[in-house]
Structures are given as structure tokens and as C-alpha cells.
């Protein structure tokens, strides 16, 4: 049994004879020497990752203005920062969008602009108190004007990430990027072989107080992250670092089309090799890191798992989905992850960066619970009109017109001889038919590609579908294709108005 102490390793770092390698290099070393010799030989293994970490933000302290103010609402370049704490502190979150520029600019951009030393417009309002009389404030400042700019990321460095693809027939835009229709592509995140938590999955050395590489400078782990779920191998970390020392090489704002803003964060953790078990775990390969491919076309918390996949397969550039080779895209940068592991290695080798034992271990037993919801989600069946009138596809459009006139619906589902949904006609289709010649029957004028809904779909999903396709009504069909109701955007707006 090889046993090394933190003190021993730090002494070597100090004396300049530490043996530090990256997690990628460790794979080969272990293969050559075996766990026992590798544990003797190697003192520190460095990891690295660079990817979108939405759960990131910065605590800022602006200093007190004259006359003083208890800032109640704070905006930085038009992006709201949370200021429900003491007078001149605020937290700018990466995902907060600008009030004026929307998707184009968000908290992540404010953070990058601060790092780059750019000037930021601060606008604040308050209600005024005896001790803090001021009610509004406008000023321009940069990172050097602030007392503190401390990055605190509630959830970074996920042990692994789910892989995304999309089974529906339109492109969807997600936090995993554009997902092309009909399983047209696959996107993934994470650094595989270099992933920090995958290299110490039992959290033997990674814990509260572990010094890390964060954004180009030294930071610390302050505990487990939110949604920490070690029992399902989705451990997370909460991180702290000084934004004033960070570099835009390793902290970058990002825009995900039709999703919002996020922050690319560069992070790396050094793992002291105290024993054979750590030598073994830091030799984890891309092949060993296995995750699930999920269908993001299903707009639910519980997305179906299409298959398992490892990072080696993902990195070949394509994986098989439903029997077809599907191209893969990485959302995080492996090149940058390597750079970070390499940078950290240099710091350790140069005697500038030491390791320590955690002052407290991370919880090894925990899972992430779903939300407790005390009100039932309204479903399509709760508000759909059940007394829906349908028309036979062989009816004439005069009959259709009559039916629309007699009823209050402006949409008439069309059924074929077997009674199943075949199309839909609207008052508009009928007026078009009157204007054109040669169309006598409903089947000639109906829209055949009908957007439909299921009775048990949540209303929010039906509403989004109507919005996306820009239609105002959908027939509700059962599993066999029979029309059992109709749902209109009007019904939905009424419901949402009540819910407010």
C-alpha cells in the first residue's frame, strides 16, 4: 500500500521536485506502471474543464455613495442584479437578460465586460430611509472602482452531463445549442478524461477549501453545489474566486439562440495522489465516462433516454441514434480544458500552487429531488371544448360554411370515412374556396398537416406549440386518431389570465 501525505507532496512542490501530470497524461502512466508504481511516481494530477456554466455569478460591492443609499433595485448595463442584501451589495447572475437588449446581452456579458476593465453603467433605485435617504443613482464604474468582485458559482463542474438530441420534426433551440429535427445531431458537454469530479469520484481529495484554477486565477471550492446528486453520479461544486484577478481567456459570455445567456467558465482542480486508489481514479479515460443521450424534443423533466454513450464515442464525431450515424458537437472546449489542466500543472511545478486536504468532505449521499408542486398542472382535457363539431371530408364547402356559421367555432376538424382526423378547415379556407374555382369539397380546401394535441398534455406545452406554429386552435385526438375535443389559444389566454 502506497500512502503519501499532503505535507510530503507540498514539500516537493516547494523544493521544485514535484511530479505533476495532467489527467490525460495519467492514463498512459498508469497503463505503463500500474496503480502502485504510478501512485509512488506521481504526486499531483491536474484536471480542467471549460464550458457553459449558467449557474454562475458575481457579488459586487460598489462602496457607499453620498448621500448614502440602500439600493433596492440595481441594473448594470440594463441587466438586473439581485440586491436584497445590505445597502450596496449586489449579485449579478450570468443568466439574467438585459431589460432592453433581451437575448443579446445578459449578466454573463456584464461579468466579461468587468473582467475586460470596461466601464459599466450602474442604475439603482430605492425607497429612501432615515439612514439611507437617497432614492435614485446613476453612475459609471469599472472593476477597479469596486471594493469587491467575488465570483460565487452555486453550481459548477458537474461530474457529467446528459447528452442532447431531438426527435421532433423542427429544430429546437436549447441550452445544449441547436438540435436539428429528427435526431439530426447530438450535442454534449464536459471534458471526459479531464473532467475534475470524474477523476476523484469519491471526493477523497476534492472538498470544502480545495484550491482550484478558476477563470485564470486561484479560487476555492466552498462546498457541494446546488443539485449535488452524488448517488446518481451527478455531483456538483460551489466555487469562489476573485473576479479582479480573472482573465477573459477563461471566462466568456455566451448566447444560446432563443434560450438566453450563459457563462463559459474555465475551472481545474489539482488532485494530490495520496494512494493507489487515487492513482487509479485519475487514470479515468473518455471511455470510462458514460452518460445518457436524452430526447430534448420531449418537453418534460423526464426526458426519455435513447441510449448510453461514453465520451470516446462522442469524440469520434458521430454516434448511432436509431440506426443512423448522427454527427456530434461538443458545447464545451476540449482544447481549452487541456490548456487549463496544463496551466495548473505549470503552477504546481513552478512551486506557486499547493494542495491541501479538505476541511470538510463533500456529501457522498444525496440525490436531487424534483420540485414539490402543490397545485395541479392544468391539462388540455381540463379546458378543451368537448362538444366539438366535425365535418366529413366529402362534404361540400357550402356545408362546411353552414356549419361554421351555425356554431361558434371558427375551426372545423375534418374526418375521413373511418371517423379519424384528416384535416382542418377554417372560415378563411372557405372564403378562399369561394374565390377560387375547382374546389368543391372540403377535402380539396382543408389543411392536411394538422397540429394536434393530446388530452393529457400540460396546457403550457399546448400553448407553446400553438405559439411556435402560429395557429389559433388544435384538435385534440385520442391514441387512435379520433377527435375528442378542440383547444384554442383563446381558451388558454383566459386560463392564464385567471392564473395570474
Amino acid at each position: 500500500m502506497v500512502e503519501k501525505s499532503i505535507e510530503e507532496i507540498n514539500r516537493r512542490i516547494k523544493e521544485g521536485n514535484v511530479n505533476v501530470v495532467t489527467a490525460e497524461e495519467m492514463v498512459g502512466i498508469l497503463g505503463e506502471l500500474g496503480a502502485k508504481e504510478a501512485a509512488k511516481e506521481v504526486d499531483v494530477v491536474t484536471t480542467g474543464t471549460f464550458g457553459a456554466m449558467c449557474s454562475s455569478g458575481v457579488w459586487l460591492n460598489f462602496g457607499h455613495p453620498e448621500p448614502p443609499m440602500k439600493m433596492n433595485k440595481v441594473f448594470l448595463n440594463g441587466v438586473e442584479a439581485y440586491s436584497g442584501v445590505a445597502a450596496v451589495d449586489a449579485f449579478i447572475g450570468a443568466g439574467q437578460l438585459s431589460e432592453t437588449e433581451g437575448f443579446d446581452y445578459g449578466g454573463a456579458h456584464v461579468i466579461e465586460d468587468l473582467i475586460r476593465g470596461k466601464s459599466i453603467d450602474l442604475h439603482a433605485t430605492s425607497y429612501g430611509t432615515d439612514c439611507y435617504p437617497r432614492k435614485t443613482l446613476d453612475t459609471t464604474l469599472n472593476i477597479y472602482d469596486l471594493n469587491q468582485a467575488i465570483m460565487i458559482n452555486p453550481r459548477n463542474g458537474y461530474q457529467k452531463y446528459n447528452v442532447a438530441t431531438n426527435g421532433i420534426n423542427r429544430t429546437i433551440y436549447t441550452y445544449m445549442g441547436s438540435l436539428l429535427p429528427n435526431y439530426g445531431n447530438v450535442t454534449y458537454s464536459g471534458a471526459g478524461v479531464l473532467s475534475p469530479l470524474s477523476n476523484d469520484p469519491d471526493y477523497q481529495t476534492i472538498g470544502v477549501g480545495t484550491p482550484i484554477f478558476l477563470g485564470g486565477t486561484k479560487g476555492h471550492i466552498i462546498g457541494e453545489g446546488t443539485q449535488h446528486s452524488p448517488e446518481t453520479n451527478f455531483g456538483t461544486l460551489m466555487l469562489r474566486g476573485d473576479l479582479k484577478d480573472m482573465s477573459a481567456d477563461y471566462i466568456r459570455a455566451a448566447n444560446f439562440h432563443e434560450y438566453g445567456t450563459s457563462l463559459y467558465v474555465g475551472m481545474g482542480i489539482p488532485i494530490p495522489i495520496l494512494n493507489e486508489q487515487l492513482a487509479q481514479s485519475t487514470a479515468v479515460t473518455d471511455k470510462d465516462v458514460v452518460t445518457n443521450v436524452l430526447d430534448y424534443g420531449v418537453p418534460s423533466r423526464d426526458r426519455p433516454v435513447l441510449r448510453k454513450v461514453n465520451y470516446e464515442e462522442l469524440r469520434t464525431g458521430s454516434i448511432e441514434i436509431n440506426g443512423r450515424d448522427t454527427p456530434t458537437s461538443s458545447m464545451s472546449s476540449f482544447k481549452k480544458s487541456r490548456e487549463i489542466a496544463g496551466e495548473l500543472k505549470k503552477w504546481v511545478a513552478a512551486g506557486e500552487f499547493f494542495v491541501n486536504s479538505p476541511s470538510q468532505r463533500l456529501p457522498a449521499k444525496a440525490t436531487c429531488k424534483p420540485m414539490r408542486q402543490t397545485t395541479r398542472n392544468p391539462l388540455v382535457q381540463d379546458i378543451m371544448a368537448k362538444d366539438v363539431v366535425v365535418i366529413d371530408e366529402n362534404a361540400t364547402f357550402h356545408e362546411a360554411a353552414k356549419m361554421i356559421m351555425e356554431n361558434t367555432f371558427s375551426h372545423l376538424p375534418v374526418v375521413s370515412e373511418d371517423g379519424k382526423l384528416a384535416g382542418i378547415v377554417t372560415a378563411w379556407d372557405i372564403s378562399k374556396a369561394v374565390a377560387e374555382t375547382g374546389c368543391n369539397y372540403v377535402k380539396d380546401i382543408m389543411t392536411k398537416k394538422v397540429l394536434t394535441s393530446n388530452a393529457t398534455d400540460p396546457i403550457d406545452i399546448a400553448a407553446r406549440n400553438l405559439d411556435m406554429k402560429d395557429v389559433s386552435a388544435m384538435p385534440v385526438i385520442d391514441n387512435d386518431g379520433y377527435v375528442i375535443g378542440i383547444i384554442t389559444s383563446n381558451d388558454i389566454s383566459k386560463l392564464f389570465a385567471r392564473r395570474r
Partner: protein
Amino acid sequence: MMIKINISSNVIGEPILAESMIKTRTALNISQAHFDSTYGEIIAEVETDDFKAIRKALESKGAKVTVLDYPIVRDEEECVECGACISVCPAHVFSFDDDWGIAQNTEKCIQCGTCIKMCPHRALSLEK
């Protein structure tokens, strides 16, 4: 060179492409084609020497020909070399090089713009 051929609805039923190719004895290497009842769009590669002739032939039959000579531009300052753009490009313009950097073959770009929406760092553009 890459060209885009647009065919409007009034001539969509006619064998414009085939006739133009036969007439000019030119080969069009079609890489993308999209047709529906209202319009058609074809992306094709053609030898530079043949371009004038085929354009004339196509345009005389009512098609519109555009040269795709402003391919995608990648801003290397903004790009973090993630590779997000790789899987969405229909022309396989992007790939990883041996060091996990981004290699690109912009000659194949058909200027569709798909990668622009995908890039999380707004590093890609089609402006001249």
C-alpha cells in the same frame, strides 16, 4: 465555385436544370436541393470556366443564379474552439484538427447561416 439556383413557382415543373446542363455540356455537382410546390433552391458546385455559360442557360429559363462567394467567417478572438458548429453544418465546413482546434474548409460553405445560430460565442458571420 459554389452557386445557388432559385427556381420560382411558375417554372418549377420544368426540367430547367437538366436542359441547361445538356445545352452547355456542363456538370453541376448538386450538394443541396430543396423543393416544394412554391419554390425550388439548389446549391451546386460548378467549374469556374463553365460558370458563365451555365448561368446564361439557367437564367434564360427563368432561374435566378447567385454566386456564393462570401463564405462563413470565424472570428478567432471570439471563438473558443468548442466545436458546437461542427454538427449543424450541412456542408461539413468545420471539423476538429489533431489538437482539438477548429479546422475549416470554407470553400464548401453554402451560406445557409445555420452555424451562426448555433455558435454560443457569436464568432461566426456571413457579412462581407
